[in-house]
């Protein structure tokens, strides 16, 4: 009798606890799948990852111990610095980087604002982890003409500016919309192409230089090229945790699949290349830090990337031969980053050091591995102009993260087949 008197209280307590527990669990659970069932999510992605993981010849950053012999090309004066001028104005904007026009006479800076766009529909993998992308910045896109030292705002809400091949217009994403800015009329128009309003749609979608759009066609769909027939590499399924890097001609694509743990099963970060013939080449494992620093050569035949190790390296993968070349191996663990190809693919500029142990400096190395040059002390993020005569680079700012400078270069050594200026 006494027991039964407490029964309702116990039941109520249990229910309360259960509902509290459920609410707690629900509160902790990020909502990765609003529109998609777990068992049908990311099938293509899982298939690519499964076949990549089955390879045992992948370069694995988590186990790689570099050779003890450094690979340091001979130091030689390759270029002279003719001029070094600060270009970004002290207007309080956070200029984070720029994209050169194909002709090299202008560049578009990306300057994130304090405004943001919420990620409402995340495209996240089902995960034991609780890292969640919640928003992306709205950004000003600002056009800069070095010769005239003039600035022109293109938009207050744009991302991933991409020059048209003829340098007459700039395509960019305004949220989900693909826009076209005409240089001569200084007017922006909507192209009619649109990405879905999801995490992948907002973060990964990007214009191609011919006005097409790499984006999912609908929420949670694979990436496709819109505006034309499907390229041979077909649909590519990515989650919001993945990173995508298109080749200069848009016909090859590097996908860095982010690491994830689900139901206690850890899947490492994997990097693959999708080729125009539909083949997929597995490339890297546990190398997300390398993958996000990867850069295509202008001749689209190679990708270069740094490897963070106790003796840091720069590697070049040749997509035609499938061979990897170690271009530089330091005898220190100093960070190598910010790789940028010269337009003729003969040199790589890069940053050595990160101001923690070793001060930053900008170096050049010939991609045949014969010569190197310390171009300057203190800079980072070199960005070679298409005419090969300038390098845009950053220095830590005094009132903002980065200030940007422009170097004018002249060759110090006679380049075969070219006249000295």
């Amino acid at each position, binding site marked *: 009798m006494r027991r*039964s008197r407490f*029964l309702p209280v*116990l039941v109520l*307590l*249990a*229910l309360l*606890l*259960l509902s*509290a*527990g459920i609410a707690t669990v629900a509160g902790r659970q990020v909502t990765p799948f609003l529109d998609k069932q777990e068992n049908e999510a990311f099938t293509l992605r899982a298939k690519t990852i499964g076949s990549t993981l089955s390879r045992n010849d992948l370069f694995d*950053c*988590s*186990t790689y*111990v570099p050779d003890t012999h450094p690979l340091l090309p001979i130091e030689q004066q390759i270029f002279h610095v003719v001029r070094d001028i600060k270009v970004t104005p002290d207007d309080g904007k956070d200029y*984070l980087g720029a994209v050169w026009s194909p002709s090299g006479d202008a560049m578009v800076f990306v300057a*994130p604002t*304090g405004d*943001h766009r919420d990620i409402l529909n995340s495209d996240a993998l089902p995960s034991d*982890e*609780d*890292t*969640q*992308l*919640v*928003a*992306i910045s709205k*950004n000003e896109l600002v056009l800069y003409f070095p010769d005239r030292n003039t600035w022109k705002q293109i938009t207050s809400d744009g*991302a*991933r500016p991409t020059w048209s091949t003829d340098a007459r217009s700039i395509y960019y994403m305004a949220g989900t919309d693909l826009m076209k800015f005409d240089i001569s009329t200084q007017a922006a128009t909507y192209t009619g192409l649109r990405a879905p309003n999801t995490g992948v749609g907002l*973060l990964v979608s990007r214009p191609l230089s011919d006005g097409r759009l790499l984006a999912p066609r609908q929420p949670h769909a694979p990436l496709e090229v819109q505006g034309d027939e499907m390229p041979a590499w077909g649909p590519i399924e990515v989650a919001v*945790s*993945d990173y995508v890097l298109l080749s200069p001609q848009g016909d090859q694509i590097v996908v860095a699949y*982010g*690491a*994830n743990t689900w139901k206690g099963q*850890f899947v*490492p*970060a994997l990097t693959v290349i999708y080729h125009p013939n539909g083949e997929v080449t597995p490339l890297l494992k*546990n190398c*997300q*830090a390398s993958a*996000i*620093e990867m850069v295509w050569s202008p001749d689209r035949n190679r990708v270069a990337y740094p490897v*963070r*190790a106790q003796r840091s390296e720069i590697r070049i993968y040749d997509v035609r031969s499938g061979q990897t070349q170690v271009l530089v191996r330091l005898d220190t663990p100093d*960070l190598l*980053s*910010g790789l940028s190809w010269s337009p003729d693919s003969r040199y790589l500029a890069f*940053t050595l050091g990160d*101001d*923690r*142990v070793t001060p930053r400096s900008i170096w050049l190395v010939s991609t045949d591995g014969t010569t190197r040059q310390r171009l300057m002390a203190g800079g*980072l993020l070199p960005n070679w102009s298409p005419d090969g005569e300038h390098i845009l680079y*950053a220095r*830590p*700012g005094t*009132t*903002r*993260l*980065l200030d940007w400078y422009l170097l004018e270069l002249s060759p110090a050594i006679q380049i075969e087949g070219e006249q000295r200026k």
Partner: protein
Amino acid sequence: MNRQLRASMMLAALGLTLLLALMWSSTANALIPSYKHRHRYINPDYTYSYYETGKEDYIKNTLPNEWYSTWDADTLQAGAVIIRSGVYWRVNRSVLGSPWPNNNCYKGGSGSTLYYRTVPTSRGGQEQWLPNSSQSSTNSAIDATYGYHAELVSPSATPRPDNLVGLRYNPTIQNRTHNTTGDWLTRIRYAYLNQGDPYDPNHECSQIDDQTSTNPFYPNY
């Protein structure tokens, strides 16, 4: 009646088990309150992404990029505890009433969320939190040291978590935890006693904070 009683008792037991589980969980987290971190991260395309992450996932996406995952488990565990100590330092400064000034790219807190700017060193920042970069060996080291932070390092040290940042942001901390022997605690003690050039927690943050920001999404306190 008996069946009802059994069912109710089972439910109650379930509820109580859940309660105990919740209590255990909050006790385990009590060392470092389980605040969400909101990071502003610079993407390779020069835009910002805002991420929310719990403290353990924050460590899992930092440790493999600041230590070397090929190193032995004791070194990685020392690294995990040191990075967790940095988290504790931030939480302490943010919400536990530390009277010492805060900088190091801290942006404030609101409710159960703390705000930071996390800029990779390759893009001008000070630390290497990279989303989706966790690795198996470093994850194991982090799980093996769950709940520990370096306040336990030295009884003679001033018991003030702010001092621990000297470990977290010391530029040679990785090698000092590697170039010795013993378990993670021994390695941290060694690293702490041989700090070399300590990080000054009152040094101005190199990632300039906009002290006038009124953006409610990214508040400045």
